[in-house]
């Protein structure tokens, strides 16, 4: 079974709108990572949020982490067409540096 899982297969928004991708996980972690993958490219890390952090920001991106419910979210504000990509959460397992990815949420930002 998946150790990490995004809650939506696909989302679609219009440019300028905000969107949130949710993730649930099933293992003890030292950190939760969010990645973006564009077509034909390798994943690129957006945010790494450690288990003792509740929120982290990176420009238009905001990640939250709730270790009690084993869930995380990634919010993107003022979306742009270039935000169109697949978004993954990945668990960074405690003390091992083992990184396991979810199945991904496909985000389409329409003009």
């Amino acid at each position, binding site marked *: 079974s998946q150790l990490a899982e995004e809650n939506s297969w696909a989302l679609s928004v219009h440019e300028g709108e905000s969107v949130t991708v949710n993730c649930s996980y099933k293992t003890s972690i*030292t*950190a939760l*990572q969010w990645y973006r993958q564009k077509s*034909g*490219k*390798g*994943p*690129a*890390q957006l945010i*790494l949020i*450690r288990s003792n952090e509740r929120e982290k920001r990176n420009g238009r991106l905001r990640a939250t982490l709730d270790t009690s419910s084993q869930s995380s979210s990634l919010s993107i504000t003022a979306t742009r067409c270039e935000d169109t990509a697949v978004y*993954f959460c990945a668990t*960074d397992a405690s003390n*091992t*540096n*083992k*990184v*396991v*990815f*979810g*199945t*991904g949420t496909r985000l389409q930002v329409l003009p």
Partner: protein
Amino acid sequence: EAGVTQSPRYAVLQEGQAVSFWCDPISGHDTLYWYQQPRDQGPQLLVYFRDEAVIDNSQLPSDRFSAVRPKGTNSTLKIQSAKQGDTATYLCASRSTGNQDTQYFGPGTRLLVL
């Protein structure tokens, strides 16, 4: 700073053929990961190394797949006898684990097994 490089970028094989993928991580990164990403799925961890040592290869199909990192720098992933189910993109990533730093991915090798 150069990123993670992989070669070849594409490979097309008949079932039963062998293929090797090569990865050059970012200089100084002690941890190296190999992932398999089937179409429309998330990357699935196959094996990872810290320096030259295998830390976890529990998801590597050991009868046909092998991976080495002999000097703790470059790495090779080999499929001995490819099957159609091996069709996927093979991604390499590296990381410096001192501060649980960012994991950087290469562009991947797209494998098609006919």
